[in-house]
């Protein structure tokens, strides 16, 4: 059985301490710039904050993983290199990378620090994963959220590195690291700037009939009736019309959360080494609740006990949830 490490989000130093205290085996975080894929206002760490956070985590036996998982545009590569140098100096336990140039730099300059392949690298086959393992000595791959459990089990047999999968949180629909939807509407790039459907471009407009329009950069991403709760205008979770769908439908996916808690035992059995909880943008109380619940479940499974699924399922109570691609190919 794998160790089934729990990898928890740390959007701020306070959230990091919360996740550590709640029993995270590792936390992941980023700097306050384009070098990571959650470059949101008010999130992330200064180098000083990261130094203090690494100390806090290490004193309690928790690892710190630094996300450098965006793609530097030509001319700005130094920002990513400096971030890697800073992370190495501060003693982070691994870098999470996607860009080959960044991976190559770290593999050559900081060979003592583990490299994890970000979901942003979109490595979804044994061959793609082995490319990164053989060239950059990648020790772990974060799998795209598009594979079924049997497929994950098969990949595990064919690769020389550990597997991390998402288990809870936002349900990413597009192959990460290959999505320019936000840049198309807003001029800010997910890959190059770490930005996705940015809050600065969001508007909610009340219409005369009481309905609500949620917009991104002036584009209506969805419209909600007076009784409906208006959702955040994430492009891939909006409602649009198509020739066969004149009434407006979720063209890509409904605004659901990923909750794989029911599949946890099966995923551990398939050889998944680490489970990632999404949500660096979430509150401390959210992080505490989710991490505590999963800590208990993982410990139960590792001790051969039946985990208390009700606690995990309750985390998304009142919200729509999905097992996404993991459960069945019909998702596709």
């Amino acid at each position, binding site marked *: 059985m794998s160790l089934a490490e729990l990898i928890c989000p740390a959007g701020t130093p306070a959230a990091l301490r919360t996740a550590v205290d709640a029993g995270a085996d590792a936390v992941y975080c980023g700097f306050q710039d384009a070098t990571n894929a959650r470059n949101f206002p008010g999130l992330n760490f200064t180098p000083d904050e990261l130094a203090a956070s690494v100390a806090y985590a290490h004193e309690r036996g928790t690892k710190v993983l630094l996300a450098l998982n965006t793609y530097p545009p030509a001319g700005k590569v130094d920002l990513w290199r400096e971030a890697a140098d800073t992370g190495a100096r501060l003693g982070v336990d691994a870098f999470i990378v996607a860009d080959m140039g960044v991976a190559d730099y770290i593999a050559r300059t900081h060979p003592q620090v583990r490299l994890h392949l970000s979901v942003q690298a979109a490595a979804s086959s044994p061959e793609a994963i082995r490319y990164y393992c053989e060239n950059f000595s990648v020790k772990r791959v974060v799998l795209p959220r598009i594979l079924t459990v049997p497929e994950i089990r098969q990949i595990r047999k064919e690769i020389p590195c550990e597997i991390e999968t998402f288990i809870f949180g936002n349900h990413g629909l597009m192959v990460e690291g*290959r999505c320019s939807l936000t840049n198309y509407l807003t001029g800010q790039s997910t890959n190059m700037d770490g930005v996705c459907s940015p809050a600065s471009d969001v508007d909610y407009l009340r219409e005369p009939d009481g309905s609500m329009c949620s917009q991104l950069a002036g584009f209506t991403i969805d419209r909600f009736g007076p009784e409906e709760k208006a959702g955040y205008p994430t492009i891939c979770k909006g409602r649009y019309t*198509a020739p066969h769908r004149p009434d407006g439908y979720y063209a890509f996916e409904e605004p659901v959360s990923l909750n794989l808690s029911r599949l946890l035992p099966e995923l551990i059995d398939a050889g998944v080494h680490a489970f990632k909880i999404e949500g660096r943008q979430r509150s401390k109380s959210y992080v505490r609740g989710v991490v505590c619940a999963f800590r208990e479940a993982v410990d139960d499974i590792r001790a051969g006990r039946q985990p208390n699924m009700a606690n995990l399922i309750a985390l998304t109570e009142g919200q729509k949830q999905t097992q996404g691609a993991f459960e069945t190919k019909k998702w596709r």
Partner: protein
Amino acid sequence: MAVNDMTKLTLGPIAYHWSADDRRDFYARIADECPVDEVYLGEVICSKRAPFHEADLPATIDRLERAGKRVILSTLAEVMLKRERKATEDLAAMDAPEIEINNAAGLFARGQRPHRIGPFMNAYNEATIRWMAAKGATHVCLPSEMPASAIAIAAQAARDLGLGVEVQVFGRASLAVSARCYHARAHGRTKDNCQFVCETDPDGMPLRTRDDRPILRVNGIQTMSESYLDLLPETPQLVADGISHLRLMPQAVDMVAVAQTFRNALEQREPLAKADTRLAALCGDAGLSNGFYHGEAGYRRISMKATA
């Protein structure tokens, strides 16, 4: 500037599920009439479509090569299933024609043997391009969302390494790929029982906002820009920055006329503004955009005056 006979015009792979007959007709006309230098062939988006047209590939390659075009085979952008892994491996094993790789699985299979880097490979910067060149890349197509400033630096790096460097200048931009088929979803089906409904939309399935504004196009697992990229007014700058290849993506418009318009622009046979007006007319209702190049929202069209 002297008449440009150095910059190559290329025709990218057909992104849509055009029927075998339509493809045959299309490439016959490209071979006979179209002033492009290089043509990329192969199914890049959906492995389920490949059986419909792969039997025609040898004849198409032959036809294009006899017409003096260089042919390159493009690999799948998404490699997950057994048949996708096999298709990628088979292409990577070929000695000729050249191949363009769109997934790291292809890089793995190809090893150090020469290959081109496709637009799905995320070659955003000089460090990555240097890495790829050291691994056998001879040519790199930059992601279409890159702004001019980054394109210039990446192009310089590629040229210094002796690589060809390519930018898409016409046609819908690929904005995203997914494991899920959105064409099938729109028709209440899944990818496994899609019944190839994407064939009914030779220029993609339009999505509109609920206040009826065109926004995106669906092409199977791919999401594309509603507007066609049009960097015709920017061609002099692209050439000056060292871009060696300009890519036209096939759309359901008169691609021979589109290519001729770009050729004329490269050879300075008519003013850019006039050529661009003609291009817009060729594209009918499709909007044109160049926002990515100018560091703005991709759907925007920055006017010639503003770029002068």
